[in-house]
């Protein structure tokens, strides 16, 4: 069975998804504070790696990466509420790209699997 990454159209689709997802994050008052003073191109590259991972595409993401990458945000008060916001924005992004509710649930499950790492638990 092909991955959602392949079904949506591979790397080109992820590029499109990153733009949509990143816009949602910047416009979401729950999480936008964490994107102030951030280099946008580097942030987009990180989001591309994240989206590739949760969609089942070729990636080298590990739980340890997620832990290290978010440690400074945990110090700034990152909690489950923020992770929920990310997963919600991820779902609406995929919906816009034509994913089914089933597929979105599967992606949310993958994203949830790194929740403890992200929050440093």
């Amino acid at each position, binding site marked *: 069975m092909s991955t959602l990454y392949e079904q949506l159209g591979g790397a080109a689709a992820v*590029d499109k998804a990153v733009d949509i997802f990143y816009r949602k994050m910047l*416009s979401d008052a729950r999480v936008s504070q964490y994107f102030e003073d951030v280099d*946008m191109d580097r942030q987009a590259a990180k989001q591309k790696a994240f989206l590739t991972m949760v969609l089942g595409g070729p990636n080298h993401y590990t739980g340890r990466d997620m832990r290290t990458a978010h440690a400074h945000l945990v110090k700034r008060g990152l909690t489950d509420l923020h992770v929920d916001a990310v997963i919600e924005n991820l779902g609406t992004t995929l919906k816009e790209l034509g994913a089914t509710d089933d597929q979105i649930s599967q992606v949310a499950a993958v994203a949830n699997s790194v929740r403890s790492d992200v929050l440093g638990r």
Partner: protein
Amino acid sequence: MANVVCDGKAVAVERGQRLLDALTGAGVRVPSSCRAGACQTCLVKATRGAAPAAAQVGLKEGLRLQGYFLACLAEPAEDLEITVDGGELSVPARIDRVDRIGVDVVRVRVLPERCFPHRGGQWMTLIRDDGLARPYSIASVPESPDGIGPLEIHVRVVRGGRMSGWLSAGEASGTAVQLRGPAGDCFYTPRDLGQPLLLAGTGTGLAPLWAITRDALRAGHTGPIEIWHGARTADGFYLVDELRALSRRAPQVVYRRCALEGGGDGEVSVGRLDQFLLARGAAAGGRAFLCGDPTFVASLKRGLFLAGLPLRDIHADAFVSAPPPG
């Protein structure tokens, strides 16, 4: 603490201390400018031990693979041997002439003495023989792919600025210098020739835009090209006649100005250029090139992105100034 040997001299780098500070504190001469990881002036090369990856952000792959990294970002955790001799990266050049083209802007024409492949709009580092180094955007479009031939930069004359003071004082012509680079991806690439281009810059952020515009026209770009120049007051505008002439020759080029202060007239709008452009609802299609003041660039980049422009179609170059001498 890490022990760093720099061209044979041992320097101790305390935990949490930046390598650049440790080196200059120990009397090692390292060219530097922005001290914030943007201008790439303080490139050093690891000759033994691994270059700190976090200090290689934004470098071309070729430089990373050779072990180059930025001393201003590096907090080495392990012992290293490095060299600050960037000679293999530099091209000898000569300052050909300097002309005042604005109230506080001079145009410097530089002649590389070897191949210096570059694109108009990229930036390069100008290094004086005493090691003083500053990054400048290239305002000219190369005549040939090898980049031999005169290239031009626009230099804002800063009060107390060591490089700009020297360049504008009239004694610099004929001097031998070194060029390093070029770097940056704020340049025109010939694709989608009918696409609208939005070019917006403040101060000498006009320099790369001037190059990008002519590069696009030379490549046969047919879409509308809108050039917006922002300045604090109307005194800050320069190249006005040249840009007007260009827009007469190439009717698809629209040239507009925006001043932060002062009374507007038909030609000059008043306000913050980023807010002005975002408020009028910039078209979501096309490509944007944004150069100059870092706050301006960041604000407009974010705004255009939120308005629907894909990130890869926004080319931005924030000019991070050198800290004032002191």
